């Protein structure tokens, strides 16, 4: 069959708009639609992948040839990330199937699909204004999902997120405008060819606006104040959506711009320094959190700092390490959020101290949480070990020894606060009286799939490395992006 990258945007959007209508007739069908959509899109993503290796797929929308019309650029990098978010999205849907039992169900699934469509759009599009539109689709859906539980804190977290998010999109729009004023085009590949003639001062100003705009969504310090609140007040699977999908999309955008438009040395130094600061501060804040989901949120910020460090080093090996870390973070942090969701549900409190002894009462969920915790700290034989190792070796080759020391110290802090939770789960006396409610099968299957992937990659890292190498080349190779993006 003839698939096209347009499906990743069009199908979830269409499904999202149909869901409220179908919801009037049957709630059960509404629950099944996102699963079917995501399964279909995962299939499309996997079957398109071999084609992208030969030549990036460039889709022209509405017959306007680049640089005039909107193009979709679907290279190995986009293919890798889109496949990742579709599969993570499917797992999160599987988990939500029994976890989200509150009304309005159809709104939850509608917003969930909108986030997926927006994130896929950011990764695929080759047009900066189009990217702004997708960024807004993703963020507006994310604001609403944060407030989904209709409680006091949810509204507050969502309002905070909305304020910061609007700032980010304003900065991004001003950057788009300055680029258009300076180069007269909106196509990324075309801008890249004309960026040489732009004087340095506006260029640096535009770069700062871009970094602020996407730094907010990719949780760069000091723009990440929204993250802990939004992660902890949204329903637990949505924590996985933020960490595994939304943040990845804007990190992709940031990296694409850094490598294609602003490829001068100081950009990467800036990203490196911001990554280090983000990581250190986030890990120290995570240490003193009392609530488990806030702790996971800070840990997620710290991991993104690590990704930024690896991107900032800027060599081929370090970009591969960063993409590996992005993938690992997407699966491991999603597993942690999914497991934490049921731990919170069973203990009836968001506090870490309420988790005492749950390992005896709820062995399966606790096991998955412990596995995720060990994997994210970077212990062998789990997936997290390899990406951390690659980041360390590539940073060492780049000659940033202070950075390595800081990464290792943060790793120790991370181990301390994760193992604190795990030890509470297993080595404390059981205080909960709740032994009736069980984790439903769909939740266990969802977490099980992620856990199997984590262990499998831990033993056979080359399974994923062979997909990462072409993706990293796609990101670094500016010349081929311009060549294919302009259809030459």
């Amino acid at each position, binding site marked *: 069959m003839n698939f096209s990258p347009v499906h990743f945007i069009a199908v979830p959007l269409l499904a999202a708009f149909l869901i409220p209508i179908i919801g009037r007739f049957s709630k059960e069908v509404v629950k099944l639609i996102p699963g079917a959509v995501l399964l279909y899109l995962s299939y499309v993503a996997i079957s398109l992948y071999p084609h992208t290796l030969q030549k990036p797929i460039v889709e022209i929308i509405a017959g306007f040839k680049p640089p005039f019309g909107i193009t979709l650029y679907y290279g190995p990098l986009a293919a890798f990330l889109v496949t990742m978010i579709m599969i993570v999205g499917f797992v999160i849907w599987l988990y939500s199937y029994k976890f989200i039992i509150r009304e309005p169900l159809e709104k939850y699934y509608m917003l969930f699909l909108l986030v997926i469509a927006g994130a896929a759009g950011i990764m695929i599009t080759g047009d900066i204004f189009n990217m702004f539109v997708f960024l807004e689709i993703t963020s507006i859906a994310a604001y609403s999902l944060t407030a989904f539980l209709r409680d006091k804190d949810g509204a*507050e977290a969502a309002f905070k997120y909305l304020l910061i998010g*609007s700032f980010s999109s304003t900065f991004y729009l*001003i950057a788009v*405008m300055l680029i*258009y004023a300076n180069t007269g085009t909106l196509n990324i590949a075309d801008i890249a060819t004309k960026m040489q003639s732009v004087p340095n001062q506006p260029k640096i100003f535009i770069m700062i606006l871009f970094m602020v705009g996407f730094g907010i969504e990719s949780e760069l310090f000091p723009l990440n104040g929204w993250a802990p609140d939004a992660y902890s007040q949204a329903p637990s699977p949505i924590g996985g959506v933020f960490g595994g999908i939304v943040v990845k999309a804007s990190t992709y955008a940031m990296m694409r711009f850094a490598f294609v438009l602003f490829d001068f040395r100081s950009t990467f130094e800036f990203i490196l320094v911001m990554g280090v600061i983000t990581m250190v501060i986030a890990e120290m804040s995570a240490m003193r959190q009392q609530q488990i989901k806030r702790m996971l949120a800070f840990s997620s910020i710290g991991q993104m700092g690590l990704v930024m460090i690896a991107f900032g080093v800027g060599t081929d090996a370090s970009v591969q390490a960063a993409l590996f870390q992005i993938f690992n973070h997407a699966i491991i942090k999603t597993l942690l959020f999914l497991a934490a969701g049921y731990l919170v549900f069973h203990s009836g409190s968001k506090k870490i101290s309420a988790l005492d002894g749950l390992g005896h009462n709820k062995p399966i969920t606790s096991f998955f949480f412990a596995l995720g915790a060990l994997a994210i700290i970077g212990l062998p034989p789990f997936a997290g070990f390899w990406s951390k190792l690659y980041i360390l070796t590539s940073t060492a080759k780049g000659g940033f020894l202070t950075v390595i020391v800081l990464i290792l110290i943060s790793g120790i802090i991370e181990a301390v606060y994760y193992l604190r939770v795990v030890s509470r789960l297993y080595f404390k006396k059981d205080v909960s009286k709740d032994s009736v409610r069980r984790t439903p099968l769909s939740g266990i299957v969802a977490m099980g799939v992620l856990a199997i992937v984590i262990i499998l990659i831990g033993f056979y890292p080359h399974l994923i490395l062979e997909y990462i190498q072409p993706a990293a080349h796609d990101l670094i190779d500016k010349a081929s992006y311009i060549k294919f993006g302009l259809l030459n």
Partner: protein
Amino acid sequence: MVYYITAILLILIGMYAILTKKNIIKIVIGLSIVDSGVNLLLISIGYIKNGTAPIFSVEGLTPDKMVDPIPQALVLTAIVIGLGVTAVALSLVIRLYDHHKTLNINKIRKLKW
């Protein structure tokens, strides 16, 4: 030039409102002022004095007498998005008022770092 200055002034006024006002409705108003400022800035990039619509309607009309249509198309999209964001923001304000019975942002701060 005067268009740019006005637009930037509007953006700054909006940001001032977002950063200093205590009433959350005023903050939302600030957000939409920033939006208008950005839209105005976008429009003024494509503007030419005494320019006309980019349609070859009159004999002898050359492209250098036409305004750039792309910023206008972008602004149409940006206005719609701004409307959506404002609507979400106001619905959250209603929710916040229901829970807290106040619009003062200093009194709504249970969540902290």
